[in-house]
């Protein structure tokens, strides 16, 4: 297969900059597709070229398959990197790429289909003997009420086409089921253009553990697991690798289950298999597979030394992996804090605007992935992420202390950020001990005045 010479990046923000970084290292030219709102961003400056694909609204720009492909053809690109979010797992984009002899840097359409539809993904999990949370497909309130006793309360109603926590509804009582079902369908229709939903048991005390998969279609490898249990409303806030305090037996079972799933569907690309670890039952369940680069991939890069974007590009070029499982040596511990422009005092409302001074110092064991420089604009049109601060250390306490140090001294003026929240978490005993569940952050916020007092002192 031909080596890729020029990549159209169909994304924005920090991940666009991240992809450009690796492309520059590899000597690959980049064309960044930008909306009107993103013309002056760091990515637009760093890319070999930027092309404006439409207005700020992502439905009129970043989500337009035809425009993205046309932009790639018109600028002579031989591949498209979709990043995460937007069109990253869109079958139509993958299909349009293959119809136009453009390499889609991601899995083949068949794999997107296999994992993109959660019902299909669940079927594959059953076939691959990967454990699943009890649940099932429901198409109307009556079916939902009929299935509910088998699942048990509390349960979750989820959008078949959903992701990233969007389109989920928690139901605690059978009386609420019909109303919540209708709301879930409406939300799913509005958000994803697909009103199909399914229900599953809500594990009240669970950890989110996911496995990084790297596969050339023949060799299927894992690059360890990540723990993403620090979440607020299903949005990840802090991730770390490896998962702290996970019993070794379960860790191996989880890694094996992820490999089984990827092998079963013949997966070929970079991907992540997500699991929910049921702390009360000492069990784990398959959640979904994400067929893209993940926001939190840097913690895996930190402990493995791999460049996952470079690996993803090489696989897309058709190159066989030059690694075996034994070549992947995971060392030390890594954290990632997602720094968002949001007002933690006002229910985490996004706080877009122009940033003032920005300074993330260099330090041993530190990486900052960001598109924000002093004076940059945080657009109200997109997510509020400013930066991902990633630290590494020989041990978990060392990596943790490095994160505390950086967040204490970095400069980020002009907009409200969630740094105080991160600092409160990093100083909290339960987090320091490790192995917290997904309820953790909600509980910490409930005692917030005390938890955030640290900021007032600082």
């Amino acid at each position: 297969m031909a080596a890729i010479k020029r990549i159209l990046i169909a994304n924005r923000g920090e991940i666009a900059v991240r992809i450009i970084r690796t492309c520059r290292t590899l000597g690959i030219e980049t064309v960044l597709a930008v909306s009107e709102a993103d013309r002056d961003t760091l990515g637009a400056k760093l890319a070999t070229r930027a092309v404006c694909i439409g207005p700020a609204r992502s439905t009129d720009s970043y989500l337009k398959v035809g425009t993205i492909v046309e932009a790639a053809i018109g600028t002579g690109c031989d591949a498209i990197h979709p990043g995460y979010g937007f069109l990253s797992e869109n079958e139509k984009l993958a299909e349009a790429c293959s119809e136009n002899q453009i390499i889609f840097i991601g899995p083949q359409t068949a794999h997107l289909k296999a994992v993109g539809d959660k019902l299909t993904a669940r079927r594959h999990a059953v076939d691959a003997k990967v454990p699943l949370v009890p649940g099932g497909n429901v198409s109307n309130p009556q079916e939902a009420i009929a299935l509910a006793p088998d699942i048990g309360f509390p349960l979750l109603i989820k959008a078949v086409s959903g992701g990233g926590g969007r389109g989920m509804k928690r139901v605690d009582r059978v009386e609420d089921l019909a109303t919540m079902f209708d709301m879930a369908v409406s939300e799913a229709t509005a958000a994803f253009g697909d009103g199909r939903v399914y229900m599953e048991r809500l594990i009240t005390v669970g950890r989110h553990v996911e496995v990084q998969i790297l596969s050339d279609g023949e060799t299927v490898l894992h690059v360890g697991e990540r723990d993403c249990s620090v979440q607020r409303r299903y949005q990840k806030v802090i991730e770390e690798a490896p998962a702290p305090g996970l019993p070794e037996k379960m860790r191996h079972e989880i890694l094996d289950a992820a490999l089984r799933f990827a092998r079963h569907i013949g997966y070929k690309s970079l991907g992540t298999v997500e699991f929910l670890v049921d702390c009360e039952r000492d069990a784990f369940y398959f959640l979904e597979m994400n067929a893209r680069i993940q926001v939190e991939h840097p913690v895996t890069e930190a402990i493995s030394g791999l460049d996952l974007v470079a690996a993803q590009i090489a696989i897309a070029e058709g190159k066989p992996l030059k690694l075996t499982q034994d070549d992947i040596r995971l060392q030390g511990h890594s954290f990632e804090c997602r720094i968002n422009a949001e007002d933690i005092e006002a229910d985490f409302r996004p706080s877009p605007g122009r940033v003032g001074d920005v300074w993330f110092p260099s330090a041993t064991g530190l990486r900052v992935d960001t598109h924000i420089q002093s004076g940059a604009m945080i657009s109200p049109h997109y997510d509020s992420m400013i930066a991902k601060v990633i630290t590494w250390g020989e041990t978990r306490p060392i990596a943790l202390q490095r994160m505390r140090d950086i967040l204490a001294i970095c400069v980020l003026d002009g907009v409200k950020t969630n740094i105080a929240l991160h600092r409160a978490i990093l100083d909290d005993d339960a987090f320091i001990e490790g192995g917290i569940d997904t309820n953790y952050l909600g509980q910490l916020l409930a005692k917030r005045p005390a938890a955030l007092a640290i900021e007032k002192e600082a």
Partner: protein
Amino acid sequence: MSEKLTHSDIEEIMALIDGSSFDQLSLEMGDLKLSLRRTAPQSQAAAPAMEPVVTAPAASTNVPPAQPALPATEPATNANLIDVPSPMLGTFYKAGKPGAEPFVTIGSKVNPDTVIGIIEVMKLMNSVPAGISGTVAELVAPDGELVEHGQVLIRVQQD
């Protein structure tokens, strides 16, 4: 300060901007809006700071270079000319099919509904209306090449 701008006021303002490093001036006084723009080629150098919006079209359709974004295509040579920007990214065609007469040429009268070209996006043809009334003064975007969203297609002398 007087309520109305006189002819000599405007001359004075124009002299001021002429001697300054600015390329554009917008003035609003009550109902009055005055917009002045310095003409080419002087403004070319300053264009990136003021108009970072439009990038140069690709050099050829097949394998154009991935050149860095460039400042606006030639700025309008007359302050009264109105840019007609591309409503979308795609391949721009001046005529309905190869070899056919172009939709508009210099001197063509247009009204807001007049089709001035076609933009192809993934084999779908989208007609582009002028959006304003006037006379076509400049044909800017080349035929058969990629235009970006917002890139100037033609310029029209408004009625």
